[in-house]
């Protein structure tokens, strides 16, 4: 991973000196086994860029804040589709963006790492060994089997070599997906529950929601300049917004169901929403379920670049006759 970091820094320097105004990548975090978004505008800043299995953030959303500049952004395979989404919805000009794709050997699940190795890790280097990562720390090393320590989204990943990018950092890597991993297992378990228990499951999680809106702010599909939950609803006497600022189970339910529905057919599966949630709501269960239903009902073809719900077919299945 050291070579990848060095290659990345060289390319970033080259891009910044060839007209790119802002390079968005990852830098070291202040916490053990973490990285964070890094914004480089000057050549000397590229020395802080890194790439390692803690670079979990989807950086694509930041492009929206710099849509008027020439920007380069580091994308992993799971980040890449978000660019197409934002370009198709006319938020971004592809011509102003330089995509720096990094073939990815998987991202480590931080919580599991800390639970296994303790909260005070000082990692000096990481080696990608294909089916495992070796983390070197002062005095030794840990080898972690990817099957056990990767983030759940990585276990089902079939797109870890980002395509359609302008620069590729490093060679193509082997798929990291675990063929035994079933991303729909928990979804099917929920579907098998009676309605009352299903409701209890979601009430437990939605009841915890703090309405911090981190899920919305981090999501690249949530790109509306005025979100439905910031809108004033006509008929103000009856409640000026769709949900009030109050934390209540009905309002929390409303927020999550509608956010999931507004991104249905448009969600690119980066799973950032679930990662950032401070109270551990399993948001990807809903997003993955809706994505699967969208494909099952309406097929893979994207008739409308804005997603399946902005289009129709006269041959759509009809269960309402």
């Amino acid at each position, binding site marked *: 991973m050291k070579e990848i970091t060095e290659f990345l820094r060289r390319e970033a320097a080259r891009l910044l000196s060839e007209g790119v105004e802002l390079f968005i990548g990852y830098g070291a975090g202040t916490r053990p086994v973490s990285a964070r978004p890094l914004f480089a505008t000057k050549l000397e800043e590229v020395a802080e860029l890194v790439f390692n299995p803690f670079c979990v953030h989807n950086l694509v959303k930041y492009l929206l804040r710099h849509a008027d500049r020439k920007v380069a952004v580091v994308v992993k395979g799971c980040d890449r589709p978000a660019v197409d989404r934002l370009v198709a919805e006319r938020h971004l000009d592809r011509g102003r963006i330089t995509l720096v794709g990094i073939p990815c050997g998987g991202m480590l699940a931080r919580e599991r790492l800390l639970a296994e190795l303790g909260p005070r890790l000082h990692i000096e280097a990481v080696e990608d060994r294909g089916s495992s990562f070796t983390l070197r720390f002062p005095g030794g090393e840990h080898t972690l089997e990817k099957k056990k320590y990767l983030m759940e989204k990585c276990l089902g990943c079939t797109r870890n070599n980002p395509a359609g990018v302008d620069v590729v950092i490093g060679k193509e890597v082997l798929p990291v997906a675990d063929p035994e991993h079933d991303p729909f297992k928990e979804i099917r378990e929920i*579907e098998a529950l009676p309605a009352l228990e299903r409701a209890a499951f979601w009430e437990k999680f939605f009841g915890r929601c703090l309405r911090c809106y981190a899920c919305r702010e981090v999501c690249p599909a949530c790109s509306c300049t005025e979100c439905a939950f910031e809108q004033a609803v006509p008929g103000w006497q009856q409640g000026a917004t769709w949900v009030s600022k109050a934390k209540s189970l009905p309002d929390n339910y409303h927020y999550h169901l509608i956010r999931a529905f507004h991104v249905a057919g448009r969600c690119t599966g980066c799973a950032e929403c679930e990662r950032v949630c401070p109270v551990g709501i399993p948001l990807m269960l809903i997003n993955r379920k809706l994505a699967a239903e969208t494909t099952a009902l309406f097929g893979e073809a994207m008739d409308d670049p804005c997603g399946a719900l902005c289009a129709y077919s006269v041959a759509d299945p009809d269960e309402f006759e």
Partner: protein
Amino acid sequence: MQFEPKITAFLCNWCSYAGADLAGVSRLKYPANVRIIRVPCSSRVNPQFILRAFQRGADGVLVAGCHPGDCHYVTGNYFTRRRLALFKRLLEFTGFMPERLKVRWVSAAEGSRFAETVKEMVEELKDLGPNLVMREGR
């Protein structure tokens, strides 16, 4: 005292609302549990309307529109069909019983179909009881 479900119905002006009207004019009997909101087209129904109905105490929500191909605005109900097929699955996944949201195509000539739909829905909801998912004031 028997439980009387409250149904909020969104009926499109050109087909299903007219169908409901015809049921009335034809003196067809159907339960009074339904509260009708007229919309220009079934595709006007924002899923947030459905959620708000459940929040504010609806035990069931009915959305009725023109048969696909007959939409007064040509393509509106194609969007409805897609949108509500997916939304129904979202509601069921998150704990609503399938009977709570009913979507049906009812034309302006189908007064008896409208009456039957409401009768059927009221019977189903009487068996299920009040909807408690997302209900305010629990």
